[in-house]
């Protein structure tokens, strides 16, 4: 059960290296067969003043012996390396949880920087198991025999912490040794220092004889196969490389740095050997337009952005719709409007993705449900973009981009080499059975044509100002996009399909919704869960599923955008469960929101 997951959060200053400790802990846990879900939590400011709450960097990891769906909410273990980190995270620690503190960073001025005081810890030992650890003193002592400066030696303290937590969870050291050796291969002294610190932390925890039995989790049964950890960002990059390799057509990835989508650019920058080329554009508009140019040239193209950048791309998307060129736009949603909470998550760009363009400009919109699913969703987006000659929007969010989960590595035999059918007809707007036009590529003799934003007419796509023709073209483009629903797999009802309540969600909330449905079932409340990947066009079988339930609740991280779509399209009495605080849903929030909605519904009935 979900409740058996162990949740740990590592927090410290952004310079403390907690992300690195978190990643190593995750990989080691996954390597030993645990189910893992992670959620890094970066500060918005790159170098906020050390010791302040604004500068706290966190990494949360849930591990279990069974499949889990979220990085957890209440903490079993909290590692807080300074008072600011403690102040920010202490309220999430379960009563009876383990609190590991760095006592070397807990003097008066550290408390002042955090605008807090040592009173915060008063009574802590009554609620928590507290391990106060002289982290810097111990690290320096462990490295005393090496010829290192004080500052150099101090840097190894994150590996000391890693050693402590590895012991706590009964995880082996080997993987971390290998990581240190590889990562710091340029400097033997640092390899030695970090390895010693790692071992010292591990030994220290062992000698304390901490009660760790409750933190040790067994292995998990998964489908047989080979797995690795995959973040959403890595999933996007893997999909792009896979498209290039399986089609034999090079891919342009163009973007303008914006948090949190820049990570996609960085990941794709490593793929030039596969024919994936990164163009860091001068602005958001240029990034999308460069993709249009590449697509006109018969190349695949992907652009990525977040919130504000999405708005800047809408004019170019209009041209992509009218010129019917394929490209993929990945929007890593963040909490807005405007700069908003740039490092925090949300699903608030949905209606912009669906409708945020001038004129009549329909296009497909898909959303990934988990980090590993980002791989599938981007592959699907490219496939549809090419087959239907259309831009496709993929909605991710800050949580999906950074979170990681085990991904079953595809077998080479399952990856089909799929050549693209360029130059199908010498007439560029000659449509096939799916209403897709022919992708005619410059350089081809006999296929010369001119594209543009002006309305098109006929198979040749000549410029037209004719009124009836425009009506017909608007209809044709809408019909083409609507037809994409024929490609979808049937919807799947999770949870209890005979329940009276249908919980509907989309995108990254899948794990939280599934956990909430499980929890409600334990509490005696039967719920069916419908999670939707294809947001435009909506699946054909959605209508019948919505009709089959007395109560429809739509949970999303915005103020009810998808719920409005369902109400408008299907005339159903769908009700909203919403959250706009920059954080993913927690199971407990969802469970209480569902119960509140249902008791309200009952009150209405009995009144």
């Amino acid at each position, binding site marked *: 059960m979900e409740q058996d997951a162990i949740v740990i959060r590592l927090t410290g200053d952004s310079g403390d290296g907690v992300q690195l400790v978190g990643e190593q802990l995750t990989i080691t846990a*996954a*390597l030993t*067969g645990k189910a893992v879900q992670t959620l890094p939590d970066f500060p918005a400011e790159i170098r906020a003043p050390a010791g302040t709450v604004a500068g706290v960097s966190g990494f949360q990891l849930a591990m279990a012996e069974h499949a889990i769906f979220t990085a957890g909410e209440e903490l079993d273990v909290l590692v807080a390396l300074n008072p600011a980190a403690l102040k920010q995270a202490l309220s999430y620690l379960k009563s009876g949880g383990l609190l590991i503190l760095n006592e070397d960073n807990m003097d008066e001025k550290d408390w002042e920087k955090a605008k807090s005081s040592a009173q915060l810890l008063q009574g802590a030992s009554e609620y928590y198991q507290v391990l106060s650890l002289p982290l810097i003193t111990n690290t320096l002592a462990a490295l005393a025999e090496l010829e290192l400066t004080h500052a150099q030696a101090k840097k190894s303290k994150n590996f000391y912490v890693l050693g402590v937590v590895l012991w706590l969870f009964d995880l082996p050291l080997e*993987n971390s040794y290998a990581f240190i050796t590889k990562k710091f291969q340029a400097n033997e002294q640092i390899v030695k220092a970090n390895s010693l610190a790692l071992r010292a932390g591990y030994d220290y925890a062992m000698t304390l004889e901490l009660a760790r039995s409750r933190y040790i989790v067994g292995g998990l049964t*998964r*489908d047989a*196969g*080979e*797995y*690795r*950890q*995959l973040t959403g960002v890595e999933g996007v990059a*893997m999909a792009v490389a*896979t498209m290039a*390799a399986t089609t*034999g057509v*090079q891919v*342009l990835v163009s973007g303008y740095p914006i948090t949190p989508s820049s990570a996609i650019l960085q990941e794709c920058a490593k793929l*030039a*050997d*596969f*024919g994936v*080329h990164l*163009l860091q*554009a*001068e*602005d958001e*508009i*240029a990034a999308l*337009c*460069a*993709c*249009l*140019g*590449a697509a*006109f*040239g018969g*190349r695949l*193209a992907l652009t990525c952005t977040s919130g504000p950048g999405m708005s800047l791309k809408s004019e170019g998307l209009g*041209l992509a719709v009218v*010129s019917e060129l394929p490209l993929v736009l990945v929007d890593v949603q963040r909490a807005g409007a405007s700069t908003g909470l740039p490092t925090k998550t949300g699903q608030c760009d949905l209606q912009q993705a669906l409708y945020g363009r001038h004129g009549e400009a329909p296009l497909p919109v898909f959303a990934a449900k988990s980090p590993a699913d980002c791989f599938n969703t981007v592959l699907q987006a490219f496939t549809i973009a090419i087959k239907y000659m259309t831009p496709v929007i993929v909605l991710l969010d800050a949580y999906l981009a950074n979170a990681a989960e085990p991904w079953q*590595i595809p077998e*080479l035999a399952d*990856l089909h*080499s799929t050549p693209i059918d360029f130059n199908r007809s010498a007439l560029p707007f000659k449509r096939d059975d799916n209403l897709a036009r022919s992708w005619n590529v*410059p*350089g*081809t*003799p*006999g*296929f*010369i*044509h*001119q*594209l*543009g*934003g*002006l309305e098109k007419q006929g198979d040749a796509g*000549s*410029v037209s100002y004719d009124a009836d023709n425009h009506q017909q073209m608007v209809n044709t483009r809408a019909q083409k996009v609507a037809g994409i629903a024929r490609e979808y797999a049937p919807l799947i009802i999770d949870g209890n399909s005979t329940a009276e309540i249908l919980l509907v969600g989309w995108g990254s909330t899948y794990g939280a919704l599934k956990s909430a449905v499980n929890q409600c079932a334990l509490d005696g409340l039967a719920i069916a869960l419908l999670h939707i990947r294809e947001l435009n066009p909506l699946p054909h079988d959605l209508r019948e599923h919505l009709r089959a339930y007395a109560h429809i609740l739509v949970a999303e991280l915005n103020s009810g955008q998808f719920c409005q779509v369902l109400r408008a399209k299907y005339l159903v009495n769908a009700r909203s469960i919403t959250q706009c605080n920059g954080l993913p849903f927690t199971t407990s929030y969802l469970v209480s929101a569902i119960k509140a909605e249902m008791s309200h519904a009952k009150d209405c009935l009995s009144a």
Partner: protein
Amino acid sequence: MQKTAYQREDFTSAAEVRWCPGCGDYAILAAIQKILPELGLAPEQHVFVSGIGCAGRLPYYMNTYGFHTIHGRALAIATGLKTMRDDLCVWVVTGDGDALSIGGNHLLHCLRRNVNIKILLINNQVYGLTKGQFSPTSPIGQVTKTSPHGVTTQAINPLLLALAAGASFVARAVDKDPAQLSVVLKQAYEHQGCAFIEIYQDCNIFNHGAFDGFALKGNRAANTVLLRATEPLIFGADNESALDLVGQQVKCVPSEQATLRHEPNNFDTALTLAQLRFPEFPVPLGVYYQAERPIFNFSPDVKRTINDLPALYRARASWQV
């Protein structure tokens, strides 16, 4: 389709040309269609990308691949096309509003990156397609529908902007001298890198005669200087005058006294020439500046294939279940 010799008709589309009668764009279109056969590339190897403005319709009149895009973005679109398709010859047709106002950022970065495309900035110092508002190159005092008392803000100097942005080829031509325009177009084609040509164009509806003082045939000899590498910068009905550098100052001197010879690779001289104002000075036409710089594009060679995917997938530690 491969032919050894191409004719002008090979590059002319069947579409009816629809600019206002007397528009300078006709001459520019004609000059382009005249020189393309001489370049030796088949029509399908050329692509004309345009933004929005009167000249934006030019791709429809060419029998080449074309993309009439959105306002200001032709350069960004051409950048994506040319960097991924280095085998194509990409021309961008843009205007003073398109390239210097709404699309100014793309111009800076296209020039800075040295994308190997040929930019024809058709400058008529007015917004023609929207029927007569002032543009970023309209000089102070110009009366338009949105400046009834005359433009009050300083105009952009496109050549200075291009030079400052790091352009590797900067030239100027006028619509009314198709012979000189053709020479510059060919030089731009031959240049390895991003070529920027400002073409003065007469909008005979909204800004008629703006360049007549030096562009009309009868005024050209006295008021323009044809820039030719290694040669003096001569002008005058009888070639009697020349531009010369006296210290840092440009002076008009009798041609036999001039010591200045045009060196297109001299950036400082190019900056000086680009600052000359008519009618105090004649207008230099031709290549102001040309330099060799690394070109921005992506290699068409692919080193890794589908067989390398398994290794990529396993770049992080994997485990067997």
